[in-house]
């Protein structure tokens, strides 16, 4: 059973990793802080479910993961502006024969980024993630950050497998292009 003082220690010890985790996924500072706070409150309210000797951070991660999924589900239900009148990214990057109109740049990031470049990368990623449609964002986060299978994502988004491949392909192309543009113009 966790006491109030345990909870305080947890906030001091674990709010950073929890914030880092959730901020990368929702891309909004205020929202990320709210979700961290809600996670601690939920942990306290369900304190009888916490087993002594188990890892508190692992338990908190489980809670915040559910909060993230709930957040995305709630957003999915809200109608958003249709982006259908814009040309799709694959119609911009490839010509009618399916060849690149704008080939990927080799000057774009490499595996030996230093600390400063990594920081820059993450701030560009946040920017570019918010450029995706809500559905693309969900697919992207679930696949690349959470490691979900395509089957599970199809079920969560309630889409067919062929829709999924179009969705993830466009999300990937769009995000990559946005990152590259920011990277080359920095």
């Amino acid at each position, binding site marked *: 059973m966790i006491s*109030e003082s345990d909870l305080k220690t947890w906030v001091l010890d674990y709010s950073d990793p929890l914030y880092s985790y959730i901020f990368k996924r929702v891309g909004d500072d205020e929202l990320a802080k709210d979700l961290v706070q809600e996670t601690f409150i939920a942990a306290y309210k369900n304190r009888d479910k916490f087993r002594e000797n188990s890892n508190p951070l692992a338990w908190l991660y489980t809670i915040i993961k559910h909060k993230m999924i709930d957040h995305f589900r709630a957003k999915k239900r809200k109608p958003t502006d249709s982006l259908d009148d814009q040309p799709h990214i694959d119609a911009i990057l490839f010509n009618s024969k399916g060849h690149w109109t704008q080939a*990927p740049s080799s000057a774009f990031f490499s595996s030996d980024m230093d600390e400063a470049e990594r920081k820059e990368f993450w701030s560009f990623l946040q920017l570019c993630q918010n450029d995706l449609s809500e559905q693309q964002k969900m697919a992207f986060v679930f696949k690349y950050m959470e490691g979900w299978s395509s089957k599970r994502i199809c079920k969560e988004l309630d889409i067919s497998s062929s829709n999924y491949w179009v969705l993830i392909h466009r999300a990937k192309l769009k995000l990559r292009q946005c990152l590259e543009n920011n990277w080359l113009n920095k």
Partner: protein
Amino acid sequence: MMNCKQATRAIEQANEHRLSWLKRLELRFHLLICKSCMLFHKQWEILERLLSDPSSSSQRLSEEDKSSILIKIEKEIHKS
């Protein structure tokens, strides 16, 4: 023959073993002759590693943020 648009999509499907052996062969061949798609493929592999590595970014909360979280939590707990 597979074009670049199809190849970039097939890379994703190959990762999840959703390609027939014939398509896989076509993709391999395409990547062998197309520098742009190979670059796209290699760069995305780096990106994927970064995305799934929790230590690759560590945003921190300020002390102020932490104390405001503590205050809000206390309020919430004592409400009930």
